[in-house]
């Protein structure tokens, strides 16, 4: 009885949800969600880093420093916005738009979980397109334009140097990133993230371990996380491309980076770790309320683990020199990705037409 | 049977190539002479076996070449071409002997070009296929171009190019005519052919008079520029003046324009849309050339230039004779070609000698050369008299035939030509008088007479001038046979 009402109202909701405008406006709430996630990620990073270094980390604001980020945000809002005299003012001011647009557009196509009703999974995604992974890959590259605009408009040598490093790194890691996505597409037969998740009867990480490794490393390279953060290596180029940014302008860039990281970990989960599915979860999700929440939680949990791993990696691996990064990308990861591609083709043949 | 005619074309060409590869002057001239003597022998052999009593083609050789376009390799001779082939074969060896000791740069190329020219010209005379005809026709340009541009006078570059472009354009216009003829015939019969005889026969059945006239005019233009007649002669004075003597002789032997008239123009003339107009055009051109050439020659101070214009004047007789359209006038025109070739060769050779030995060829600066050069004087008297038409020499025979027989059809024109004849006599005599006789011009210093080689070659040709003047029948017979055949077509057409 109750289940019928829920299911019926959900059907009504779904009908509303087929309207793209409604989906779009409702989806805007994801922006809030993702900012919160990013804050959580920052908090997580601080906490884990502190743990690794036998420190306590943020602890004053709220329980275990959980509101530290809110305090930081308030601080950033009240700081003075400085535009250097030699900077190209228009470009300097408009660059954050590109950074933000990049992550927002990624957000549109990435599901953040699913709701299972009557055994049918309804993914929580703003819009469903045929080539969403390709789209995500494309829009994520917009951020490089923002980075470059920041650096170029700052008219600062460190910034420009950082941006060039960013650029050199990115070109090396976009290719294996793309190739490993193709390998995933071969085994799952689609470029639609949701279909990729649904078609992962066996997780891709098991089918294509090399692919997972390549994708992960390439993702790290794309994100500019340690050990690939030559862009912002304090010891070498001060703060890299973002040197001249201060206050909330810095905050926007900073948030964009963290959102990028969160979304990146989402992608890892979606493409290789089975998304919101978990073996043996099928029974549980048939229960209405659990089915409502469980897959999303599973997804976020997996993502948190990946995120934590990324953060831990920061303290486990030392930063590479820029030439090492580029060499690694071109001479190790790309060949590896091609090996994986051939492996995926063989797999495809084996799995059958 | 031996392919005599093909050999006659190929042997000069082959020897030309051999000559190109010789190293020294001695080798070059010996090779060249060998080649030309062999062709002379072949030509004489052909002449011996030639039947002058029939108008049809003899020594015919036909083989396939490009069947899809109807192109064949076919050669043959008749009374029109035989004398001209003979003329070439006779004069070229003596031209080589004449040039025996001349100091030339690149003697191998010099003699090679002479032979190449001979091969090409004989090829034109022998060709029975329009394609082949045109190929040889164009081929004659190259040796002459190089002859003028390499060994010519001070203004050689200009003269060579002018000659080249001028006559090339004319032959391209002729080519247009050939194409038109070819395609019209093709569309009528349904199979392509380039055979001259067949195309000329086909021409008779063409329907559109305008097309016929256009074809005729296009072909005529190609020929009269080559002849050349006034007003299309302007390449000639420059080319003749600048050319070396051997080149001049080759120019003189290049009788392909007149040959084209007999071979191609006259057979189709009666079948054009407006035959009378065409006849008038030709007669007018001929008459104008005779008179104009004579007058301009009279005004020349340069010996060579004078002879050049004399040549224009002479060739006018060829055109006029063709336009006369009587068997004897056409034969006269043919004979004029033959005789012109002999006479003018010697005249140019004489000028060459004067030029090299006396150092100038401006008539006013010469004088009394006969005292120092008696042999030259004797030869010059013979050929000058022949050139102005003294009875007993070849020139007279030809001009007499042309004038008397053309009178039947073209009385007005012939009367006009009479003025030209007087002037011709005047400038010939004047030039002889000024240069050879009278007081010796001491400024010239000590002038040598002819060398043995020069006197041999010039004397032999001069003797031929006298011989054919007294007894023209050996060549005139075959000409008459053929011209009668040509003229007989007129009655068919009812002109």
């Amino acid at each position, binding site marked *: 009885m109750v289940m019928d009402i829920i299911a019926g109202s959900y059907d009504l909701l779904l009908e509303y949800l087929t309207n*793209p*405008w409604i*989906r*779009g*406006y409702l*989806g*805007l709430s994801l*922006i809030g969600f993702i900012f919160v996630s990013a804050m959580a990620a920052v908090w997580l990073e601080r906490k884990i880093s502190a743990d690794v270094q036998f420190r306590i980390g943020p602890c004053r604001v709220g329980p275990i420093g959980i509101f530290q980020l809110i305090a930081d945000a308030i601080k950033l*809002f009240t700081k*003075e*916005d*400085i535009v*250097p*005299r*030699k*900077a190209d003012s228009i470009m300097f001011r408009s660059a954050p*738009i590109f*950074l*933000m*647009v990049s*992550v*927002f557009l990624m957000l*549109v*196509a990435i599901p953040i979980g699913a709701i299972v009703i009557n055994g049918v999974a309804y993914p929580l995604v*703003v*819009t*469903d*397109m045929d*080539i969403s992974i*390709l789209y995500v890959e494309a829009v994520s590259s917009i951020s490089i334009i923002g980075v470059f605009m920041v650096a*170029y408009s*700052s*008219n*600062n*040598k*460190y910034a420009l140097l950082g941006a*060039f490093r960013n*650029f*050199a790194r990115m*070109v090396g890691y*976009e*290719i294996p990133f793309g190739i490993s996505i*193709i*390998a995933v*597409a*071969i085994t799952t*037969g689609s*470029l639609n993230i949701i279909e990729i998740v649904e078609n992962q009867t066996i997780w891709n990480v098991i089918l294509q371990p090399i692919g997972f490794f390549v994708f992960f490393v390439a993702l790290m390279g794309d994100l500019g996380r340690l050990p690939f953060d030559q862009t912002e290596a304090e010891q070498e180029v*001060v703060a890299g491309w973002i040197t001249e940014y201060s206050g*909330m302008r810095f905050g926007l860039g900073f948030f964009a980076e963290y959102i990028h990281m969160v979304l990146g970990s989402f992608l890892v989960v979606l493409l290789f770790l089975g998304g919101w599915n978990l073996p043996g979860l099928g029974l549980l999700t048939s229960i209405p309320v659990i089915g409502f929440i469980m897959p999303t939680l599973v997804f976020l949990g997996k993502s948190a683990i990946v995120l934590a791993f990324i953060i831990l990696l920061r303290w486990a691996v030392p930063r590479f020199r820029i*030439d090492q990064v580029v060499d690694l990308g*071109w*001479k190790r990861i790309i*060949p590896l990705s*091609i090996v994986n591609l051939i492996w995926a*083709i063989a797999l*495809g*043949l084996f*799995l059958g*037409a | 049977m031996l392919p005599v005619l093909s050999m006659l074309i190929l042997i000069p060409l082959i020897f030309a190539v051999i000559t190109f590869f010789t190293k020294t002057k001695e080798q070059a001239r010996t090779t060249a002479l060998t080649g030309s003597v062999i062709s002379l022998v072949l030509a004489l052999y052909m002449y011996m076996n030639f039947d002058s009593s029939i108008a049809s083609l003899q020594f015919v050789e036909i083989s396939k070449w490009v069947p899809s376009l109807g192109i064949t390799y076919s050669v043959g001779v008749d009374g029109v071409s035989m004398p001209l082939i003979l003329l070439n074969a006779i004069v070229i060896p003596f031209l080589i002997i004449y040039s025996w000791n001349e100091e030339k740069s690149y003697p191998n190329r010099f003699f090679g070009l002479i032979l190449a020219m001979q091969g090409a010209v004989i090829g034109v005379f022998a060709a029975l296929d329009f394609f082949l005809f045109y190929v040889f026709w164009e081929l004659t340009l190259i040796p002459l171009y190089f002859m003028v541009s390499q060994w010519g006078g001070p203004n050689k570059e200009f003269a060579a190019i002018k000659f080249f472009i001028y006559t090339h354009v004319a032959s391209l216009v002729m080519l247009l005519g050939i194409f038109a003829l070819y395609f019209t015939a093709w569309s009528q019969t349904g199979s392509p052919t380039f055979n001259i005889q067949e195309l000329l026969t086909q021409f008779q059945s063409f329907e559109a008079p305008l097309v016929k006239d256009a074809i005729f005019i296009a072909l005529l233009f190609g020929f009269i520029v080559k002849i050349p007649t006034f007003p299309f002669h302007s390449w000639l004075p420059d080319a003749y003046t600048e050319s070396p003597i051997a080149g001049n002789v080759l120019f003189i032997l290049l009788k392909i324009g007149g040959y084209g008239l007999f071979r191609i123009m006259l057979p189709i003339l009666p079948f054009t849309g407006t035959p009378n107009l065409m006849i008038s055009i030709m007669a007018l051109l001929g008459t104008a050339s005779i008179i104009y050439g004579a007058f301009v020659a009279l005004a020349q101070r340069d010996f060579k230039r004078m002879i050049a214009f004399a040549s224009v004047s002479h060739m006018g007789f060829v055109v006029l004779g063709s336009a006369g359209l009587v068997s004897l006038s056409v034969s006269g025109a043919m004979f004029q070609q033959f005789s012109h070739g002999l006479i003018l060769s010697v005249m140019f050779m004489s000028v060459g000698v004067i030029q090299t030995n006396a150092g100038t060829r401006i008539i006013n600066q010469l004088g009394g050369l006969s005292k120092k050069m008696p042999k030259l004087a004797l030869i010059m008297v013979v050929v000058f008299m022949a050139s102005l038409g003294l009875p007993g020499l070849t020139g007279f025979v030809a001009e007499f035939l042309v004038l008397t027989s053309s009178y039947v059809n073209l009385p007005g024109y012939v009367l006009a030509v009479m003025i030209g004849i007087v002037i011709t006599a005047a400038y010939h005599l004047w030039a002889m008088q000024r240069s050879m006789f009278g007081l010796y011009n001491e400024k010239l210093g000590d002038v040598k007479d002819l060398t043995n080689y020069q006197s041999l070659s010039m004397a032999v040709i001069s003797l031929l001038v006298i011989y054919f003047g007294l007894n023209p029948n050996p060549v005139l017979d075959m000409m008459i046979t053929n011209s009668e055949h040509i003229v007989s077509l007129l009655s068919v057409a009812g002109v």
Partner: protein
Amino acid sequence: MPEIIDTSSIINSYVPVAIFLIVGVVMPPITMLIVKLLSPRSKSKQKFTTYESGSDPTGDARIQFNVEYYIYAIAFVLFDVEILFLYPWATVYRGHGITSIATTAILAFIVIMVIGFIYEWKKGALQWSTK
């Protein structure tokens, strides 16, 4: 048989993208506007100089940069469009009954791609010069 493409549904699936795009474009300026309202302002000449480790900045930052970047850029552009062909191929590789011919084709493609890669490598185009 040509697939029928429903343009309308494609366009509609991008409506949210447009909404997000607009939000993305207006959000940073609004944020900065808020900052402008909240933050203090003080005039100081030194504050507006470019940061160069504290000393006065010299020259312009927009200098000629290393040509190596161009070589990498070219290599990147080429490889990136090469793998572009793999995307559509990958989606239809399985389940459309063309697997065997698709395998042959793609192996030839990969071989050529790898040859290009080896060529670049051997020619030193991938060598970061520390000159």
